[in-house]
């Protein structure tokens, strides 16, 4: 038994994205969820399922009291930060398919535009668990942790900053076409990229995602119900989560091959339960807290072989409209907004609806992934 094509994303909603938005995180969450329900044409009183990130500050009961839901009969959270997004939606799809609820909402709301809101800046005097074996030596931020893997990747496979620039420039071009993107009015050339200041060598400023205040939400229900709703449904064709053997969160330096992250495990179940393979994916939204996650994810999800992810990005491969795999067509975390990857999910839905600002002609299949480098997840969406 699988959940293939049994459920669909039928509503999407988002707030503005910015450096300093008015309103609390709870207010932002409620605004995005209400927008998603309105988009679907479903009343809040019908919501009976709620999925969210374990890192989400707005708990289900509070969100439910604001929205005015009826009885909520399923709720669940997924851990591991940026790895959670597709897992939140996929778990909601499983709950709908299993009959535990009929209309589920899933969301992410954050206010991290301000410097003081950055999680790493709250590092305790004594570190236990995440960072215990790295932060005391000055490997403090997520960018440092991923830069370590990046240097090794460059060493083993000949990847260069030119490859990372391919990623950053492609996503910026897409953001420049998307009025909702934080970088909509800010073009970036390859020279701009090369001249940017270092953050953690070998990664520079433009290898990093944005810092964003904002919220994003979607509505999941059965494929049967979806037929009668306001919007064309994006069927949830495939779903995966993954933790691979001996993985350590973020500082994944302790397994035989640290350059193979959880995407490799997630990919296995994603494709095993799908009718299509990587060659059949028309457009992708790949989690991009940092540019090197793109080549690593391309390898993990089977778009190319091990070590070929950097070269895959050459010749405009990621760029709309003519690239072989237009990727992060709204600008992604690096140039649209960083809402912990949830904005990638609603862009994946827009591509299936045909409403992206960088719409891939005739897109019928759309892959969305959550963060590589942490326990992760992915969704495969398709047209009915």
């Amino acid at each position, binding site marked *: 038994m699988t959940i293939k094509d049994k459920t669909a994303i039928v509503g999407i909603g988002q707030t503005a994205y910015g450096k300093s938005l008015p309103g609390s995180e709870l207010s932002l969450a409620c605004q995005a969820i209400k927008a998603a329900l309105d988009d679907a044409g479903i009343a809040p009183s019908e919501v009976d399922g709620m999925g969210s990130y374990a890192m989400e500050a707005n708990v289900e009961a509070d969100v439910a009291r604001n929205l005015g839901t009826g009885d909520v009969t399923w709720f669940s959270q997924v851990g591991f930060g940026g790895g959670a997004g597709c897992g939140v939606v996929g778990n909601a799809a499983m709950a709908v398919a299993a009959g535990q609820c009929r209309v589920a909402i899933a969301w992410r709301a954050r206010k991290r535009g301000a410097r003081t809101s950055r999680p790493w800046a709250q590092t*305790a005097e004594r*570190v236990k668990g995440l*960072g215990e*074996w790295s932060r005391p*030596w000055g490997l*403090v*931020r997520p960018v440092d942790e991923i830069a370590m893997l990046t240097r*090794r990747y460059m060493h083993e496979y000949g990847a260069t900053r030119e490859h990372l620039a391919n990623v950053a420039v492609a996503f910026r071009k897409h953001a420049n076409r998307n009025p909702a993107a934080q970088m909509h009015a800010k073009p970036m050339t390859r020279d701009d990229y090369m001249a940017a200041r270092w953050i953690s060598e070998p990664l520079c400023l433009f290898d990093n995602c944005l810092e964003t205040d904002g919220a994003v939400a979607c509505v999941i229900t059965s494929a049967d119900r979806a037929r009668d709703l306001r919007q064309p449904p994006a069927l949830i064709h495939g779903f995966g989560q993954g933790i691979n053997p001996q993985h350590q969160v973020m500082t994944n*330096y*302790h397994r035989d091959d640290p350059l193979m992250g959880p995407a490799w495990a997630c990919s296995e179940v994603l494709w095993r339960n799908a009718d299509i393979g990587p060659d059949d994916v028309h457009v992708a939204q790949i989690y991009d807290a940092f540019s090197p996650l793109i080549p690593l994810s391309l390898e993990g999800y089977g778009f190319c072989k091990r070590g070929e992810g950097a070269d895959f990005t050459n010749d405009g491969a990621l760029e709309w409209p003519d690239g072989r795999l237009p990727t992060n067509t709204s600008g992604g975390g690096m140039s649209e907004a960083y809402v912990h990857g949830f904005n990638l999910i609603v862009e994946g839905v827009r591509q299936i609806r045909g409403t992206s600002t960088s719409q891939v002609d005739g897109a019928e299949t759309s892959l969305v992934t959550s963060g590589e480098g942490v326990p992760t997840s992915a969704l495969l969406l398709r047209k009915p």
Partner: protein
Amino acid sequence: MIQGAPLPAVTEDSAGFWEGTAAGELRIQRCSSCGRLRFPPRPMCPYCNSLSYKWAPMSGRGRIWSFVVPHPPLLPAFAELAPYNVIVVELDEDPTIRLVGNLLDDPDGAINDVDPSTIGIGEPVQVVFQPAGEDVVLPRWVRA
């Protein structure tokens, strides 16, 4: 010592490691049942599920597996030292046992003494020990 730098919590699982560094030894968990090394420390051997282990002294020799050079914005304690290096070292005894550390010019050196442009993956290194607080001695590395 780097004033204000975060220190590791000494836990039930990690105490043997920190007792080792305080005694001037790099000690890694070795399963008493199957003999495999494991790091970071944890209660159960993932290869044979034994709960019994010993803290095995290592030679302290290894090679640089990768490195980064952080720049601000950083925690204040590290921002003052930036740019500095952070390295990952794979141990000679088992190259899948990798530790995060810093490369120094000499055992009493600072984490920003080495010119980052001279650091190379594969360089042989030797562990040294630096007190980092009242009860914690951190392993760092010099060129072998």
